[in-house]
């Protein structure tokens, strides 16, 4: 893998493509994404609509269809709810309307226990280079509580299978600060996942989102979440464990031991453009951020009327772009680069945020690098504070 990778910001323009598959066999109790269970009857119509959206975008914004696509990301929901031929249909449509000759990464989210070796091989032949499994935890009781459709055995099997099929990069997600979780559980989770041989891992603290089942259960007092102190201890423990296992943190929640970065996700932090197709998908093209109709049937209906399913769009002002650029860049290990900033905005970061940066350095939250600044470990822990300093 390309471990000498450093992000290039403005030199060559390329594109990321996000494809959202909003279907799940079972909706997880913590999830507030656009994802739905029980909509199997709509899969065909949805795929058709998604393909129509790609076509419609390419004809509405023909300029976008001239930019070479660098990364493709199937997210969800559960993209593997679709059949291989459905996925192929989507990819072929994309390849027809967008220049995809130089795609370096085709990433896909997957749930353990839902796909077999044959399907994995099929994915590989579709060109999928990276698989990201929602492992979450290896504790069977907790998996049940989270309404995950798998158990710990299935998770281990899934990763072993994926590695045996030969994907370049296999990643596992872990969630910490779950009800009743202990530091010991955390250590076990990390060790188990790493022993399986993944080269990439993402860690997420459990977020209680309003409207989710889990939120309701906690509100009703049926579940107790770890205290803030315990939450922080788990976070620290995970960082320590990952470091001890030779995993490098290249973004606040993303780690790799061999430079297997998720290039698509990096685009978000590097202020690079991405198109997004599918219900509830978010795009960033030119200076516009847009998002799509999140519900499946209205999404399909819009496209049947040959309308783009955009429900919200905003132009990012230059001032806001400056702020977003900075706080997003700081999420990564490469940090905020003076040169990249200057290239993008033709202004010096120092002139705009000199005071803030100086103060954050004094507080031990930022450090100077050869190119600019990056977060310290403390800075990452208090990331929201650091980032908010770049918002005026």
């Amino acid at each position, binding site marked *: 893998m390309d471990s000498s990778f450093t992000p290039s910001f403005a030199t060559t323009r390329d594109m990321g493509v*996000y494809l*959202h598959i909003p279907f799940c066999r079972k909706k997880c109790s913590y999830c507030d*994404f656009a994802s739905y269970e029980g909509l199997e009857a709509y899969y065909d119509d949805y795929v058709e609509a998604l393909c129509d959206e790609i076509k419609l975008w390419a004809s509405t914004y023909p300029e976008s269809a001239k930019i070479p696509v660098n990364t493709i990301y199937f*997210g969800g929901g559960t993209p593997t709810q679709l059949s291989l031929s459905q996925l192929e249909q989507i990819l072929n449509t994309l390849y027809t309307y967008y220049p995809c000759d130089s795609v370096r990464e085709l990433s896909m989210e997957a749930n353990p226990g839902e796909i077999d070796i044959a399907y994995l091989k099929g994915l590989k032949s579709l060109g999928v280079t990276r698989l990201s499994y929602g492992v979450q935890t290896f504790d069977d009781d907790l998996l049940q509580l989270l309404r995950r459709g798998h158990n710990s055995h299935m998770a281990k099997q899934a990763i072993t299978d994926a590695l045996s099929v030969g994907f370049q990069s296999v990643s596992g997600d872990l969630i910490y600060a779950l009800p009743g979780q202990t530091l010991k559980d955390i250590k076990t989770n990390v060790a188990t996942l790493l022993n399986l041989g993944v080269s990439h891992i993402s*860690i*997420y*603290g459990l*977020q209680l989102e309003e409207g989710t089942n889990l939120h309701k259960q906690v509100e009703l007092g049926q579940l107790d979440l770890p205290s*803030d*102190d315990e*939450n*922080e201890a788990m*976070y620290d423990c995970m960082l320590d464990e990952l470091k001890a296992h030779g995993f490098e943190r290249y973004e*606040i*929640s993303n780690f790799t031991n061999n430079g297997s970065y998720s290039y698509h*996700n990096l685009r*978000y932090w590097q202020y690079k453009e*991405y198109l*997004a197709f599918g219900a509830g*998908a*978010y*795009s*960033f093209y030119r200076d516009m*951020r847009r*998002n799509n109709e999140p519900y499946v049937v209205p999404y399909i209906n819009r496209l049947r009327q040959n309308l783009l399913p955009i429900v919200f769009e*905003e132009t990012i002002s230059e001032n806001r772009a400056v702020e*977003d650029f900075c*706080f*997003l860049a700081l999420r990564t290990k490469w940090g905020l680069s003076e040169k990249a900033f200057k290239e993008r905005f033709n202004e010096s970061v120092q002139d705009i945020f000199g005071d803030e940066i100086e*103060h954050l350095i*004094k*507080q*031990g*939250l930022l450090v100077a690098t050869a190119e600019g600044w990056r977060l310290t470990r*403390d800075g*990452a*822990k*208090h*990331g*929201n*504070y650091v*980032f*908010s300093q770049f*918002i005026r």
Partner: protein
Amino acid sequence: MVTEHIRNFCIIAHIDHGKSTLADRLIEATGTLTKREMEAQVLDSMDLERERGITIKAQSVRLLHTAKDGKQYTLNLIDTPGHVDFSYEVSRSLAACEGALLVVDAAQGVEAQTLANVYLALEHDLEIIPVINKIDLPSADVDRVKKEIEDIIGLDASDAILASAKSGIGIQDILEAIVERIPAPEDKSDQPTRALIFDSRFDSYKGAIAYVRVKEGSLKKRDIIRMMHDQKDFEVTELGVFTPNLLPVDELTCGSVGCVAASIKNVGDCHVGDTITKADDPAAEPLPGYRKAVSMVYCGLYPTDSKDYDNLRDALEKLNLNDAALEYEPETSIALGFGFRCGFLGLLHMDVIQERLEREYNLTLITTAPSVNYKVHKTNGEILEIDNPSKLPPPTEIDFIEEPYVKATTIVPKDFVGAIMELSQDKRGEYQSMEYLDETRVSIVYHLPLGEIIYDYFDKLKSATKGYASLDYELIGYQASPMVKMDILLNGEPVDALSIIVHKDRAATRGRALAEKLKELIPRQMFEIPIQAAVGNKIVARETVKAWRKDVLAKCYGGDISRKRKLLEKQKEGKKRMKAVGSVEIPQEAFMAILKVDDK
């Protein structure tokens, strides 16, 4: 007699007992303004006044009323501010009147604030007409309220007027009572002119405008007038009465109320309480009761964003035009940068100014702990006036420190005498005298260090007496006291803006209380922050603000950057009112923490 058809009066009422509504009705009933012209509650025009239910700047209005005797009377309603910080202003307004309407809510009865103001009115020998308002409320109990007026205040309530300002009941009776029962001003038109300034205002075209009550003689356009205390002369350019908008007149006769414009460039030349006379025929003596407005309380005002310094200066300049009692001069703080040392009449005055600066001029400010003015005698014989604790010289250079003392006069119902004494003792007060004004009212005089009473004395007094006490205080001089400077160290660094000057015996208790309060107010930060209170090198109290919890959002929501940003924006809002001092972020309230500590 020129004064025969003039009546000057004010309205005394507890908040919500209907003073403003009654004023509106009187204005309406006399046809002074048509309903369409009426803004709701004409008199309290400043937003802040309306919100706080207090009157800060007095307003006045002239009502023309044709009484039952067929004659037309000029009724001047003089509004009064209502807080101890402004008790001098209140006393000047009362001095401009011969009578007062005492408005009492028919359901709630006599309330504390009413009593305090009635006491003041009685001191000025005003004729008081009790008005029982809101009699149409279902819960109205007129008999009980009448009895309260008689028992608590000691006024005859048998001829109290029953009214409902809201429904317009009793308004004509009130107007008649003003004519019948309030004495006309004494006719002293043949004497040399003496006019009492009871308020002033700044107009960008006309200069400072004096609101006056002509006590003796008269004033005409183009008269050369003299401010008797300042001995400055001006030529009258305009005279007017309030309808309530200004209506120009050629003469203000004896007994009347109006305003005087005389190209006075500075409100500082137009002191409330001063007497206007004529330069060519001056009166021998000014009217009694003048007090020069002196700043009692000082604090630093700093913009949270140093870029706002010039804006703050401009805003202070503008406020000062209308408020001669506000003093300010530039100062610098190591912690806070460039700002102003400001002097105020009291804490409420300080509060009001700060709020007006923030609201009307859109500034975000840090206010440092208030201080009084100390006289510091240095060992080398030099005497310094220090109103900023951080400017206090090192102890080795100080021979002794004198602190300002006030004579505080409290009038309370007799049952509360014990409470007043206990409180005053607690605040290092020295008992002077006690006098029964009548069967129910007692006047108690204490000498108190101003530094003790500016903080919470008035609040404590109110709670100790259920609000039934009135307080007036005046500066009487300085006394030597063992005062020391207490520094506050955050993260080991002294923060000059948090230093206070405190009595040696109270340093330890106050230091502990202050450190505890700061711990509450300073939010958790990156690192642990020790808070120490120190007198010289001795640490008298210590607390710790623990380090922050983890706070970082991990999810990327499939590229939904806007959602993440919104969370950060929310977080940012909360940080706006923080000032970074060294590596510590201190919220605005922390600088005022000393006001919130309890000695006990």
